[in-house]
């Protein structure tokens, strides 16, 4: 892996801060217009994916360019069960996460034999193969996708945008609490050992292959659960919602926040979604001819600039300031 990051596992209490964040979100969405509430939900769901991705990429030192596929598997599983069989989205969420885990488990036997360049290529390829399946499988709507996906409900109460925001950030709080405990456990320290050098880690008695697989599956669980909530919140999904570009966006979130930082995942998701919104509103004013996914240019440039100027992400600077 070359450069070894200093082993500094933060002692921040993930659980309580996650809970505070949830309360703050719950308070904010009370006063925000529904459109912005929807964005806060989206940030929470993406943050959840990015937390899982940081475990796999930042802590275990691997790379995945196919995370959007797990997000999609979770979304499609929950949506298809709800639309075709009337399964409650609550079960859909659990089953979506389980389906994503199952897919990741199966793929791990192919992907995790590879490293760096080839692992990147393999995860990219598998992500696209899964997207082709979404496109071609008529049962789940093919290229036109699934619409009128039932929403979450508790008894007679059907979730509105505020409730989705709270649900999403509750998942973030749980997700970051769990991941925070994980990275401070023996498991997490073993992952860092793997990223520093797989051979060396094995020599120290770390079962590298099994740990990488478990982390890959866990990252898929995070993405799958987030995808399931996304499907119900958006009420409409199609294969383009889970494209390669979304995988690149997830990578961008991880990199911007700092790969080896769980809060970095939350910050990264916030920055990327906010940036997308700003660009969407500002660019047409400056350049009236711009259409389509023109954010790509800026996201790409920012990704490159971040990696050159601040390769350990925003939180690396925060950490240094904190220690100084």
């Amino acid at each position: 892996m070359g450069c070894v990051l200093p082993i500094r596992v933060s002692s921040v209490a993930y659980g309580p801060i996650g809970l505070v964040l949830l309360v703050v979100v719950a308070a904010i969405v009370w006063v925000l217009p529904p459109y912005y509430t929807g964005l806060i939900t989206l940030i929470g769901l993406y943050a959840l994916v990015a937390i899982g991705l940081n475990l796999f990429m930042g802590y275990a030192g691997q790379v995945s360019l196919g995370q959007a596929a797990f997000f999609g598997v979770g979304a499609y599983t929950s949506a298809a069960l709800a639309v075709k069989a009337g399964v409650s989205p609550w079960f859909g969420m659990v089953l979506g996460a389980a389906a994503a885990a199952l897919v990741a488990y199966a793929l791990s036997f192919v992907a995790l034999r590879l490293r760096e360049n080839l692992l990147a290529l393999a995860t990219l390829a598998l992500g696209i193969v899964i997207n082709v399946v979404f496109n071609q499988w008529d049962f789940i709507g093919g290229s036109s996708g699934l619409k009128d996906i039932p929403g979450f409900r508790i008894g007679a109460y059907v979730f509105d945008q505020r409730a989705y925001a709270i649900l999403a950030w509750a998942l973030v709080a749980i997700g970051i609490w769990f991941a925070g405990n994980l990275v401070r456990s023996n498991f997490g320290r073993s992952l860092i050992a793997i990223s520093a050098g797989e051979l060396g880690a094995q020599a120290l008695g770390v079962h590298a292959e099994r740990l990488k697989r478990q982390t890959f599956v866990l990252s898929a669980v995070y993405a799958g659960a987030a995808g399931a909530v996304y499907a119900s919140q958006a009420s409409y999904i199609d294969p383009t919602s889970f494209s390669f570009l979304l995988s690149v966006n997830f990578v961008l979130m991880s990199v911007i926040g700092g790969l080896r930082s769980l809060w970095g995942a939350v910050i990264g998701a916030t920055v990327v979604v906010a940036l997308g919104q700003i660009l969407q509103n500002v660019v047409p004013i400056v350049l009236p001819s711009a259409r389509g996914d023109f954010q790509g240019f800026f996201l790409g440039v920012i990704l490159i600039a971040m990696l050159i100027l601040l390769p350990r992400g925003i939180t690396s600077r925060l950490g240094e300031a904190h220690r100084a």
Partner: protein
Amino acid sequence: MIASLWQYVLSGVVDGAIFALVAAGFVLIYQVTGLINFAQGEFAMIGAMTAASLATAGMPTPAAAGLAVLAAAVVGAICYLLAIRPARAATGVTLIFITLGLDVALRGLALFVWGTNPLSLNAFSSGNAIQIFGGALPPQALWVLGSDVVVFVALYLFFRHTYAGTAVRAAVANPPIASTFGIPLRTFAFWSFVVAAAIGGIGGVMIAPITSATYDMGLTLGLAGFVAAVLGGLDSLPGALLGGFVLGIVEHVAGGLWSTGWEQGVGFLILVLVLVLRPQGLLGRAARRA
């Protein structure tokens, strides 16, 4: 049945020739820098879009094609100088992300410059379709195959019969020792990007009359180029050629017999199989950098 199968093979050969050009760019950069350049397909897009827009503006096709290849090469140089060189101390994964960023940025830039409408380019020569054993090839196919011959023969001659080519091979074989002999590794890395971009640009110019040019064609072409490069062996230029043709033919046959929507999926299944069963590819040596 046999007749249509033959036709799929012929169509696959044309696509395969383009894939081989994109794959050659991957292999060049990988050999010289050890880097997989995810933006490689965008060089082909820039070639295609520049040629089509210049020709639409009234420039004669040969001049438009030449300028387009030059434009791709310049973009390749800029990419290297602005994104790759400043990060040369970075580790493998960081560099992967940087080229990924380049890919997304170039596609976005093309959207700014050219918009979403497809641009068309006239075929380089008119005439009837060429009949081969009952199958048909468009006249453009000769240009595509011809450009493959020119590019690969030129690369072969450069690497085998020039002083500079020998120096590059030395640099690939053992960078530190080559460096002590005064071989400028960084200059070679720069030129590998320029030449790879130019070759990609040629591929784009050649395919534009067949598929028309769009701002987002680079992703598909780039992905096909990867598969071809990995299939043939990432460190083998003849492998890129072979991989391109195999992939083109398999995709078209599978797409024709099954459904065109699965074409890309079949290509990637091949990629995954190769990565697992024979990571060094058909013609590559055992992986130096796995």
